[in-house]
């Protein structure tokens, strides 16, 4: 009977279709009248449907039973239109509740609505990014769950990105970067063309980066480039100009007064009362000065309890503001032109852009970057599309080689005593190099000398070329093939001129360049990286209801893929030692020439993956799969490593009681999700190959046994992660205010195992260490983001977004149990990696804060009988007889330098043509070791030396109070110089007004039809910072970029800058 009914129904359906169908045509547009392609148009209650073309048009045969058309698209609210008698139906679709209806692809590899994700994927669209010169800078504060910080203010510098905890000690924290589905490994995120970005997706951990296997542990940032839209060609031109000035939030300055021996007229004199003047070599040391007078050195009895650094400059010694002499306000500009459009089967987008950014160091030059990008899509035949994306980037800077090699100019600038004039020139008109004024200014160097005697250039060409072919075989099967090549060539040229006639270089027996003599030399290095990534996937989709007529609302998606990556990096350095005096600076002018580096590093990895998703209607779904990888870097290379993943989501808000109940009218979306995933970080290319290195000794080649032994048995570092989260959308009030909010939260924890590091071997073994899978780490954290529509009316819209992120990582276990000691640039101290403790802690001496300070064994430092000889000054114990501070002579862990949380508050407000956006970033509980300050304490240069304190009733700028902080520890006066001490370990929390942007679109005023947009934008960046940190900038740190552990030291780092930009955006 049932069979019969079914047959009858089928008959009716077919005949009905034959007998009474009609054709409906129309166009789908957005509220700006732009056509929307790929909109699914379905006759409600039937299987009949089509997809809108590139120009938004559609044509559909509607069965007689069809009454209503449903238009749906990924990030739009669906629209239902009644057919009635009409044969033309135009649909206008509006952008829906963006955060939850967005379609994302990163992580799962299959385009999926955020509503149906079991993992967390963060997204950001280009219009939400500020106008800055680099994409990586633009992402700061924008991504929930990420710690992105600008740790170096040098134009073009990389940012530190930490997505979910520290997973690797050697591998760092830098995530994988994808552009349109293909990995970009050679080109850094900061160099990529920002004007070409459409949107960005970020998956943060192993649980979410499910398809990336052996390279996914640090998370993935995927950039989608702009694609043309069908219809009229649109042209956008943007141009902005501005200035930036370096930040000095802690008012870092040199002491305005001094404590040197002076005569009655306040002249600085030597031990015999001779007035000290500059010498012919620019120094203030003992000897014959420029007046022909023989002088001794400065007398600075800095450790004497009576030395008061309160004497004014102004007689023979003037005060020069070195920051003013060396740093500057810098210019920057950005211009871009984008053209896009498309026709029925073709879409195109072209962009060119050019940026320029001067260094905040005077004379240091400029970074210029020019980009060309294109993205062309062609529908070759129905359901077969080919897309070609190109990015060509040419970056070049002429920064001084001493600056690019390290922050030498900043160190030089800060460690020269303030009475020395950097602009002083000797009798030959040359700058002096070494500027001692013994006993101070010992490390004084003149930045101008570097500029006079060295120059360089750094030219980088990046090519990112992607090709994608996509074929929808039928409604079940989609085949996709992507291939990308990312090529980078970098040429670094460094020239150190002949310094053999410089008076100072001769008298101080010093010169720059690291060549064998003061004749200087040239070094040319070419880095060449070719990275290829090929990815083939097949996606099979079934809808059990539609395809098999089963009554269960189940849809399935299967993804199977094969992924191949190959990287070949080459380095080639030629060095020429000894240049001539005439100004020709090429290799043929050098005395001896060598090839100092010739190295090629191949790396290959490939893997297959399979993922299966099953969704039950709109209610919930599960996904699971695995990826199996091979790699040339895995131990012995032959064994595959398999990574498993699984996740699920459940939308309570889809349950009837909810959606139809009162709660459903307030909380429209309530989704719970959870996932588990594994991902890896690979060993370095040659870690498993035991080799000898070579070095030239004399005229022969020597074989050298590497100090650290390779390990043929290394395995990939594996990170296993669990995350659970919730996504909630609520309608709050009915009026214009607080209409809706979206809240997403994720809690995660992960264990990273087999982390590779070198464990020390005893010296007698003949080598320094063995590379091995030495560590287990664990991290956990939670994050939330809140998206609130504060106000929405016809003329005005105000969105408020806040992102919160907390994370912490610790070391669970170290192979062999011995501490691992790692160099830091903080004092003469080190990071110690110790099981059970947090990663990246510094160890050092504690300042006594109580006369009852105890040793680790519980004994007293200060005998009870001697307590009266000490008093507290600024919270520290001071010996009243020496005025010196007291420090332990045992090391303590200072705590985690990483922030307890980071948080952002972002507002987007528009009113008619006006726009205002601003962003506040709050980094709480972070610490920095102020090594910059500690060095400046050495010779009494730091501004603190002019600050008065009161000891024993005597008020003065007592130099030994400060000197002791640099030099002393208990039982060793002057025996702990530049040692790591908590005195210099500072709270680096800050609240920063990251970005303010004000815009006005005047297009509607001028009423020229061709001009669609005429927007004037004023942007300010890093305008205000509230911090207790006493250095230049609490956001910087001098650790290796994206290091897992070296994140807490400020050692003469280039600070970020405060910038103002004025720009214009024209749209045609």
């Amino acid at each position, binding site marked *: 009977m049932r069979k019969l009914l079914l047959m009858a129904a089928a008959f009716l359906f077919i005949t009905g279709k034959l007998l009474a169908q009609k054709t409906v045509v129309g166009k789908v547009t957005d509220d700006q009248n732009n056509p929307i392609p790929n909109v699914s148009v379905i006759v409600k209650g039937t299987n009949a449907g089509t997809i809108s073309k590139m120009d938004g048009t559609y044509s559909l045969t509607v069965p007689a039973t069809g009454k209503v058309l449903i238009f749906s698209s990924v990030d739009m609210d669906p629209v239902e239109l009644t057919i009635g008698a009409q044969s033309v139906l135009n649909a206008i679709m509006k952008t829906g509740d963006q955060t939850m209806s967005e379609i994302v692809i990163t992580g799962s590899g299959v385009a999926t609505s955020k509503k149906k994700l079991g993992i967390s994927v963060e997204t950001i669209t280009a219009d939400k990014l500020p106008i800055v010169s680099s994409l990586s800078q633009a992402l700061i504060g924008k991504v929930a769950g990420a710690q992105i910080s600008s740790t170096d203010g040098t134009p073009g510098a990389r940012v530190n990105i930490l997505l979910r905890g520290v997973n690797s000690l050697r591998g760092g924290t830098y995530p994988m970067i994808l552009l349109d589905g293909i990995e970009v490994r050679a080109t850094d995120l900061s160099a990529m063309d920002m004007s070409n970005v459409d949107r960005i997706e970020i998956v943060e951990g192993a649980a979410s980066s499910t398809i990336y296997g052996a390279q996914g542990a640090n998370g993935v940032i995927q950039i989608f480039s702009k694609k043309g839209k069908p219809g009229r060609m649109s042209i956008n031109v943007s141009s902005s100009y501005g200035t930036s000035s370096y930040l000095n939030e802690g008012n870092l300055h040199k002491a305005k007064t001094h404590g040197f021996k002076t005569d009655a007229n306040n002249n600085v004199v030597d031990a015999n009362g001779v007035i000290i003047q500059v010498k012919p070599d620019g120094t203030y040391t003992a000897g014959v000065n420029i007046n022909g007078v023989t002088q001794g050195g400065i007398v600075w009895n800095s450790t004497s309890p009576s030395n008061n650094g309160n004497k004014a400059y102004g007689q023979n010694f003037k005060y020069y503001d070195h920051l003013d002499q060396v740093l500057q306000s810098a210019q920057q500009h950005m211009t871009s032109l984008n053209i896009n459009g498309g026709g029925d089967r073709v879409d195109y987008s072209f962009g060119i852009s050019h940026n320029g950014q001067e260094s905040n160091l005077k004379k240091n030059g400029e970074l210029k970057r020019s980009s060309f990008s294109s993205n062309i899509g062609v529908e070759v035949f129905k359901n077969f599309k080919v897309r070609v994306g190109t990015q060509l980037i040419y970056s070049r800077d002429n920064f001084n080689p001493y600056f690019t090699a390290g922050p030498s100019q900043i160190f030089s600038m800060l460690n020269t005593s303030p009475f020395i004039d950097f602009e002083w020139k000797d009798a030959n008109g040359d700058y002096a190099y070494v500027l001692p004024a013994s006993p101070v200014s010992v490390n004084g160097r003149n930045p101008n000398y570097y500029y006079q005697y060295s120059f360089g250039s750094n030219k980088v060409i990046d090519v990112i070329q992607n090709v994608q072919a996509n074929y929808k075989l039928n409604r079940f099967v989609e*085949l996709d093939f992507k291939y990308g090549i990312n090529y980078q060539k970098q040429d670094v040229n460094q020239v150190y001129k002949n310094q053999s006639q410089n008076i100072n270089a001769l008298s101080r027996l010093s010169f720059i360049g690291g060549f064998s003599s003061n004749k200087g030399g040239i070094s040319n290095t070419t880095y060449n990286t070719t990275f290829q990534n090929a990815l083939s996937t097949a996606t099979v989709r079934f809808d059990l209801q539609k395809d098999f007529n089963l009554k269960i609302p189940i849809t399935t998606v299967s993804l199977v893929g094969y992924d191949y990556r190959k990287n070949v990096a080459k380095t080639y350095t030629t060095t020429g030692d000894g240049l001539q005096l005439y100004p020709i600076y090429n290799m043929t002018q050098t005395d001896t020439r060598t090839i100092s580096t010739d190295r090629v590093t191949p790396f290959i990895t490939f893997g297959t993956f399979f993922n299966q998703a099953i969704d039950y209607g709109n209610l919930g779904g599960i996904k699971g799969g695995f990826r199996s990888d091979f790699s040339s870097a895995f131990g012995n290379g032959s064994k595959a490593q398999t990574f498993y993943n699984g996740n699920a989501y459940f939308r309570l808000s889809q349950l009837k009681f909810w959606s139809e109940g009162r709660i459903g009218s307030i909380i429209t979306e309530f989704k719970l999700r959870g996932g588990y995933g594994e991902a890896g970080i690979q060993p370095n290319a040659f870690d498993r190959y035991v080799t000898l290195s*070579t070095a030239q000794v004399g005229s*022969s080649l020597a074989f050298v046994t590497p100090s650290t032994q390779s390990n043929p048995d290394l395995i990939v570092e594996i990170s296993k992660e669990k995350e659970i989260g919730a996504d909630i959308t609520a309608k709050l009030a009915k009026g214009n205010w607080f209409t809706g909010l979206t809240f997403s939260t994720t809690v995660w924890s992960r264990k990273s195992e087999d982390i590779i590091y070198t464990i020390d071997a005893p010296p007698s073994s003949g080598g320094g260490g063995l590379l091995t899978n030495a560590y287990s780490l664990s991290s956990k954290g939670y994050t939330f983001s809140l998206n609130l529509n504060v106000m929405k009316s016809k003329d005005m819209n105000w969105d408020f977004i806040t992102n919160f992120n907390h994370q912490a990582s610790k070391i669970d276990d170290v192979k062999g149990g011995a501490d691992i000691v790692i160099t830091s640039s903080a004092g003469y101290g080190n990071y110690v990696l110790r099981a059970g403790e947090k990663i990246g802690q510094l160890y050092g001496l504690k300042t006594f804060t109580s006369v009852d300070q105890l040793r680790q064994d519980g004994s007293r430092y200060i005998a009870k009988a001697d307590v009266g000889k000490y008093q507290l000054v600024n919270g520290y114990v001071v010996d009243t007889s020496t005025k010196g501070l007291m420090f332990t002579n045992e090391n303590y862990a200072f705590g985690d330098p990483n922030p307890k949380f980071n948080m952002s508050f972002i507002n987007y407000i528009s009113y008619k043509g006006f726009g205002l956006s601003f962003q506040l970033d709050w980094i709480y509980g972070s610490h920095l070791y102020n090594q910059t300050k500690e060095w400046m304490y050495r010779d009494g240069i730091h501004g603190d030396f002019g600050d008065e304190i009161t000891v024993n009733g005597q008020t003065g700028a007592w130099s030994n109070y400060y000197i002791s902080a640099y030099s002393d520890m208990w039982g060793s006066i002057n025996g702990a110089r530049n040692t790591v001490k908590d005195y210099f370990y500072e709270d680096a929390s800050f609240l920063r007004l990251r970005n303010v942007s004000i815009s006005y679109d005047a297009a509607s005023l001028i009423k020229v039809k061709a001009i669609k947009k005429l927007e004037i934008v004023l942007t300010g960046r890093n305008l205000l910072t509230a911090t207790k940190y006493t250095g230049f900038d609490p956001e910087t740190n001098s650790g290796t970029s994206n290091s897992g552990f070296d994140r807490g030291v400020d050692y003469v780092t280039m600070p970020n800058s405060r910038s103002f930009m004025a720009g214009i955006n024209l749209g045609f």
Partner: protein
Amino acid sequence: MKKKLTYILSLTILLVGGSCSKTELDVKNPNSPTPESAASEAGIVSLALGAVYRNGFNGITDTKYNGSWLGGSFWFLAPAYHDLLADVISSEAANNITNQVSVPDYVILDDGTKITNASPAKAVVRLNNSRTKAGTNMYYFEWTWMYFLNNACNRVLALVDQTAFTGDATSKKNAIKAWAYWWKGFAYSRIGSTYYAGLIKTDPDVVSNEYKKSSDIIAEANANFDKAITALNAVTNIPDYNTIVAGLIPSQNKVGKGGILTPTMWVHSINTMKARNLLVNKRLSAMTAADWNSILTLVNNGVTSSDLVFTGRSASVGGYSSATTGSVAPLTTGDPTSTTYKISERLIQEYKAGDKRLTNNYTSLITYLNQKGGFTFSTRYRLLDGGAGQSGVSVISSRTVGAYELFMAASYEENELMKAEVNIKLGNIATGLTSVDAVRTFQGAGVAVVSGVVTDPALAYEELRKERRVALVFRNIAFYDARRWGVLDDVSQGGGRTKAVVVNSTTGALNTNATINYNFLDYWDVPDDETSLNPPSATSAPVKNPKP
């Protein structure tokens, strides 16, 4: 449809073409030779060359240790600690605590003023003997460089018998063996003469935790020297031997006293080193006639004035030690306001009046006051770069590439002065002082002869003592001398020195009759970097000098 199929086909090909075979994964390291590459005649010469000049002298590459270096390679730091402790030089910079290790416990100035070090250097050095202190642990460096050298030589020895040689394989093989045993002997000599205990390590891949007392290490040093002599005696084909040795002595070293040593010259160097091992590891007061006679036998067959010896020089290409920062002498050269090491007044005062070596190597200057810490460190002298140009007078420093000759091991002067000391101690005063005169003549000192003039044994020994300080400056024996003469000991135990020249660091006043109490440790504790990773066995000798 046909068209479609073509596309689909192409796509399939692409998909398949992307596949990859596992053999592709073995990328090797195309940049570097493998250990197998060393097992050939050319390979083992390269390995033996790198073992010494790279693994040995430049083996510490870990930045936690070398991150605060002032120079580069073994020769700038390990010998510098010796020269600091022996009061040849001083240091103001805190790098690698060079400013701390040699601050005396106290000085009593001419007027009776006593300046005391609140933090005795011995304790400060020991406080820093911790693995977590890394670069500030003085004990770490010499130990590590020498064990790196030792083990690199072990690798050469492990491979040499498996290597095929052309020509007279025995002579070539033995040249390699002599090289490896010589440098092992050198390494053990330095360990045994510096540390309270050491380790004997012969298998390149096996670590021993059986610490031996220093005299056992010296015995092992001499045993290795003897093996080197055995190997040299087995050399029959000199041209083939020369082929190998020519490859082991870097080209820049084949100048001056450096070059391809004949087996005989090499044996002379070994004998001088063995004599040194005996001399410097006993207190002068404990030396017996038998000891003196043993030394005499060795030095009578030691380095002669015409012998080539083991030297080191810098080079602009293929260097293993920098001309300006690679060794102690260039780092002491220049204006003391900017040099790493400053010349000590106590060295200068050892030069006899009229000694041309003083005027050819130093100028006096406005007193350089060391106002921080080192109250005996101020100086009125500057070490000249390349000397003052006096003809025939020795030059002890140069910062010009290739110009400075570093004596790595034995030298004629050292051998001759040991001869002098033995003879003076055995009562042959005139013979002994003849040797002192010979050394002075050899170095162009231009001072009057003392042989036959000075007859008092104590005064004769004083001539010898001064001459060792002056003639052997920067030749790695000053610390040993200070120890065996008792200078390092606490004044209460008869140590320290009197009649010292000291410039007051606060006032600049000159003192000529000061008393300095150094009170430094005579033999160093084994570094914690070793003992914490390789704890001593139950039967090991003590790894810490029991002296408080």
